[in-house]
């Protein structure tokens, strides 16, 4: 009852000073909008990095030979390169139960031409399991098969960037391109993976045997891609791969001639870094919310001073301290809730716009948080002026001009 009456009195005061109320609300509105938008942008950036990393292959481990001459010091003179047999050994469901598959990759720079068009790219000679391991489905056409690999057929699945450059306005399927003079027939086009640190779409994939035979020659492979059975087992899969390769290479920790790069740990690192980034953005927003809160204190103090006489009249005819306190507190809270609502609407509008390639993703907790905090700000920053109003002595307040 007293709550409703106090709210009504507070509301009347807000309406009586429309311009001032709107300006005060603006401060909170900007603060709330800043918090929600900045956190949404942080989250959007985080999402885009996460999806980039995931597009490289879910549960992916990459094994590369470690250059023993790195740093000018020969760590292990008897370095054994990664071989196709190493990759085959990793495909062992008994010794490596958490490895879903492993495929060797032989990479080389090539220049591919067709008719008068030419494009420099990278060839990947690998096994058919590569497509599944690295999460590289085709958008059109087909993968090559184990039979193609065994017979060393000169066919290729090309990345979307290559397709755009060599076949800007025709269907690449069935066409024959020439890479470093080797004719390869296009059987498939990979789905676009999108932006990443390097462009994963600027690549052509061909059977390992064909690439070794005609482009790179035999011998060491560039890297081995390993897929763990699930994102949760990447660490187990990494340990099993290390054990198998250590045994084959006769190495131990410290003398290893290979390195394992864990996609999951990269994701974790990236997420941690982006989490800090998002928190930082949120803090910037929070500062503007704080400034908005101080604005409320300021306006409410002005309001109390200006309405000293009115408060005196109200107390003279029987308003209790509690009522005056409540009225001013609710007035501040209503202002901040209105500001928060306006800020939320602005934030939701702005968050629909993509800026610098990042599409913001509104985080529900930031919306709830901004709302709760703005109510708390109304109560907190309104409490000092409200207390001052409530403790005014009626005779002094009445004498105020």
């Amino acid at each position: 009852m007293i709550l409703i009456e106090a709210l009504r009195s507070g509301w009347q005061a807000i309406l009586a000073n429309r311009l001032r109320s709107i300006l005060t609300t603006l401060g909170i509105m900007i603060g709330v909008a800043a918090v929600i938008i900045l956190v949404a942008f942080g989250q959007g950036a985080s999402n885009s990095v996460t999806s980039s990393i995931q597009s490289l292959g879910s549960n992916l481990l990459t094994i590369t030979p470690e250059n023993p001459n790195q740093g000018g010091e020969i760590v292990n003179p008897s370095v054994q390169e990664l071989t196709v047999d190493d990759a085959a050994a990793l495909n062992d469901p008994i010794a490596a139960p958490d490895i879903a598959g492993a495929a060797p990759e032989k990479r080389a720079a090539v220049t591919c031409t067709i008719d008068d068009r030419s494009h420099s790219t990278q060839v990947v000679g690998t096994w058919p399991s590569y497509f599944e391991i690295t999460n590289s489905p085709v958008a059109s056409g087909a993968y090559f098969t184990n039979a193609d690999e065994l017979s060393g057929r000169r066919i290729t699945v090309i990345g979307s960037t290559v397709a755009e450059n060599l076949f800007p306005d025709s269907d690449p399927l069935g066409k024959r391109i020439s890479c470093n003079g080797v004719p390869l027939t296009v059987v498939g086009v990979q789905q676009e993976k999108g932006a990443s640190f390097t462009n994963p779409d600027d690549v052509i994939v061909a059977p390992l045997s064909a690439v070794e035979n005609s482009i790179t020659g035999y011998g060491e492979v560039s890297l081995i891609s390993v897929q763990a059975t699930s994102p949760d087992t990447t660490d187990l899969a990494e340990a099993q791969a290390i054990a198998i390769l250590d045994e084959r290479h006769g190495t131990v920790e410290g003398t290893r001639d290979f390195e394992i790069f864990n996609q999951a740990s990269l994701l974790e690192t990236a997420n941690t870094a982006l989490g800090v980034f998002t928190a930082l953005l949120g803090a910037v927003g929070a500062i503007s919310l704080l400034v908005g809160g101080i604005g409320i204190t300021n306006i409410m103090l002005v309001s109390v001073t200006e309405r000293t006489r009115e408060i005196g009249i109200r107390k003279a005819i029987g308003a209790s301290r509690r009522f005056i306190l409540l009225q001013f507190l609710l007035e501040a809270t209503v202002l901040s809730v209105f500001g928060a609502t306006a800020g939320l609407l602005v934030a939701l509008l702005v968050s629909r716009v993509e800026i610098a390639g990042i599409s913001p993703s509104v985080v529900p907790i930031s919306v709830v948080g901004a709302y709760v905090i703005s109510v708390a700000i109304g109560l907190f920053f309104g409490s000092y002026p409200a207390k001052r109003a409530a403790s005014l002595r009626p005779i002094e307040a009445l004498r105020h001009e």
Partner: protein
Amino acid sequence: MVPVVEMHDITKIYGEGEAEVRAVDGVSLTVDPGEYVAIMGASGSGKSTLMNIIGALDVATTGTYRIDGVDIGDLDDDALSLVRNRRIGFIFQAFNLIPRMSAAANVELPLMYRGVRRGERRRKAIEALGKVGLADRSHHQPNELSGGQQQRVAVARALAMEPSLMLADEPTGNLDSRSTADVLDLLDDIHDEGKTIVIITHEDEVAARAGRVVTLHDGRIESDVAAGIR
């Protein structure tokens, strides 16, 4: 019969030591129900301080004061608010209506603090405005009303509270002679209905309407006589 106002040896001291001022100095005063008392005195005589104490806006330094038999000497801020809300209807020199609130809302205000429901208090407010002849002005804000009309709204506000005591502090001080007559006639009517009125004034014309005149000088009661004898 319990007196409405029962003051015994009331003193109000401001300041300390050398700067000590005895604004009210040992005043004893009793007002019975139905009385119409004027308190007179020059400025500085202590009549404003006395009015604040009578109105429970301020508490005396020493002495006892009962309103309707209730000792208010030990009451805190909120309890004093409650006493004012239940027992005293103020009429101020400066009208003291709340700006940007309609006449009816102003009259309702003390009833709201009392916890009276909306419909009920609106009805009472309209009724009180009718008694002061402003039923048709109930939606007007104070700045849309003349001084005399504003003071009549203030009288309506005091009436709606149905107080034990109507306390008027120089109610005609800001009014022209015609409005003064209107407001004083109104107070006469209210008194005729049996209300207790205390009016603070320095004008003989105003005091002449009262049944009893108390004159203050330097914080003390100089004379306390029934009207017409003076």
